[in-house]
């Protein structure tokens, strides 16, 4: 393994999109002023939706718990503002559908201070209590998947976590939240790392950062306290370096077997945002009620890195950034490679949303689509060594079941193939369509 490790440094395939980070990478993080309406969907994390514990008309304070976990793979929700519960019911969510949510109206006269939560003595907590605490703090993966962090912490018998891998790659173009976070709150990050590491019983902490953030690398390296087993690994600038399995591959030279989890190779991957959230909770008693969002793209007047209370409508966020330029066509939540386009400005910013990208004229979507010329560029691009060309053609022919033979479910929808395709074929969409059909198709009952 050692030999292999230095032989196959970095992961194979992948693509090199222009990273467009110059827009915001130098902008310090600001706070958005509080608005009026807030919407907290109950299912803004992977897993079971949370159960509301508040009624319509009830007063809530900022940071007060408004929904409790609906199960183990689920987290609590806290009110992002002090105000009144307007409605517990259906609101339009990010995916364009109506989803059960909690509507909150901010109290215009409140000071919006957090309850002065005390630091929690995490060292004395038993692992189970610690996990419970993380869950009650509503902390989920900030890297995009919004996967409940405590689930990752609860390692089953037999598997031991050797390394804690902190994901500061931020390989998605435009996004600079993790970058700014690492620059502005390195100490919080390192404290968080230590908490996680100790609780996981991992030997060391590895912070993986793409080389296009030299300042972040320097800052963190300089701040690592004596004796803290933590190292920073500069990573090749290449998409999707941040995908956990790719990063594990680059850092440790190990392939996480398909269908298994990082923990199965003794690694626990967490996004820097997640780590800082952990620190904020245990050292400052601050549950997850806000997150950092990059607002960028050629359609926004003043790009920025913002601290946004969860549930803030996109409308307010872009208004703070000087509003939309005329001719804005497309707004994406998340990165340009994996993000989801939104249908209306009323959808709220959620725990998993690391960016709001606003584009005027849509150059890509206006492109003409040609038939697949089987040039194989997608095959060369796919970091998971799938055959996107074939998958796309199968999906077009609606031969979804055959696609299983081509491991359609191993596709993480990174978008490399589509990026590389000269025929401008919406490969990822075709693949997701197939997955959706395979998972949700309503087989004839009778």
């Amino acid at each position: 393994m050692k030999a292999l490790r230095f032989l196959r440094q970095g992961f194979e395939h992948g693509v090199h999109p222009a990273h467009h980070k110059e827009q915001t990478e130098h902008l310090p993080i600001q706070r958005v002023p509080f608005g009026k309406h807030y919407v907290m969907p109950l299912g803004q994390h992977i897993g079971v939706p949370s159960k509301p514990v508040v009624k319509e008309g009830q007063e809530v304070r900022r940071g007060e718990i408004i929904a409790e976990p609906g199960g183990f793979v689920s987290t609590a929700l806290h009110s992002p503002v002090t105000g009144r519960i307007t409605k517990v019911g259906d609101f339009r969510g990010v995916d364009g559908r109506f989803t059960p949510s909690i509507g909150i109206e901010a109290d215009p006269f409140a000071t919006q201070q957090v309850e002065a939560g005390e630091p929690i003595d995490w060292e004395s907590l038993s692992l189970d209590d610690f996990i419970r605490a993380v869950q009650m703090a509503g902390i989920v993966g900030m890297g995009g998947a919004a996967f409940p962090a405590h689930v990752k912490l609860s390692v089953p018998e037999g598997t031991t976590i050797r390394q804690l891998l902190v994901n500061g790659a931020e390989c998605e173009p435009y996004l600079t939240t993790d970058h700014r976070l690492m620059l502005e709150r390195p100490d919080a990050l390192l404290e968080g790392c230590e908490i996680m590491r100790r609780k996981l019983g991992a030997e060391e902490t590895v912070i993986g950062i793409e080389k296009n953030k030299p300042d972040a690398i320097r800052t963190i390296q300089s701040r690592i306290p004596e004796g803290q087993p933590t190292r920073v690994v500069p990573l090749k600038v290449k998409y999707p370096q941040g995908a956990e399995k790719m990063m594990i591959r680059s850092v440790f030279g190990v392939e996480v077997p398909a269908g298994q989890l990082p923990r199965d190779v003794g690694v626990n991957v967490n996004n820097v945002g997640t780590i800082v959230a952990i620190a904020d909770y245990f050292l400052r008693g601050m549950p997850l009620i806000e997150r950092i969002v990059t607002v960028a793209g050629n359609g926004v007047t003043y790009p920025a890195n913002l601290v946004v209370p969860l549930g803030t409508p996109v409308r307010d966020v872009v208004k703070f950034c000087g509003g939309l330029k005329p001719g804005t066509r497309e707004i994406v939540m998340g990165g340009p490679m994996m993000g989801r386009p939104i249908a209306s400005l009323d959808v709220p910013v959620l725990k998993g949303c690391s960016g709001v990208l606003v584009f005027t004229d849509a150059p890509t979507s206006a492109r003409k689509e040609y038939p697949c010329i089987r040039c194989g560029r997608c095959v060369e691009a796919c970091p998971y060594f799938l055959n996107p060309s074939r998958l796309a053609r199968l999906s077009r022919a609606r031969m979804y079941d055959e696609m299983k033979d081509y491991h359609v479910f191993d596709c993480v929808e990174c978008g490399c193939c589509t990026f590389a395709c000269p025929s401008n074929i919406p490969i990822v969409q075709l693949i997701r369509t197939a997955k959706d059909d395979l998972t949700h198709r309503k087989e004839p009952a009778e």
Partner: protein
Amino acid sequence: MENFLWIFVSALLVNNFVLAYFLGLCPFLGVSNSLETSFRLGLATTFVMLVTAVCAWVLNTYILVYAPYLRLICFIVVIASTVQFIEMLIKKLSPALFRAMGIFLPLITTNCAILGLAIFATNRGYGFWEGVIYALGAGLGFTLAMVLLAGLREESELSNVPALIKGTAMNLIIAGVLSMAFMGFAGLFSST
């Protein structure tokens, strides 16, 4: 005079039974919609051909010398019976295979490729080994053609072939192109 290599190659490529002699087109066009099936059918045919070659030789040497005019019917009956026997075997041993072949198993029985083999081998006055080699080449040639066509067909499922052409017309044209490509083998190993 004609060495084994040439006999084999000629039957396999140059004078491929399907693509140059048009023998066994029904299974060729009918069953070639799935790779596995066509491969299995191809092998089945090859096997039957070997059997045929042997039968033909036996008949020619021991029986037909007395009654040449019975050639055709003897071939037919003997081959048919032998194959029907094999059919029963397959049905017994692998019902799945039997299903995949559908109505074509009975039709291999008298698949003209098989009869053609017997007749050609006789016309050319092949001896025992020559006959066997010839059968082997022909059978494998058949399989090769089948498998190629099957692959192409499965692929063309994914491309948007106009509705008018889809189906047999398309398969025939593919076959045409294939046989055009196989012309490249003409004269292989014939001129030393």
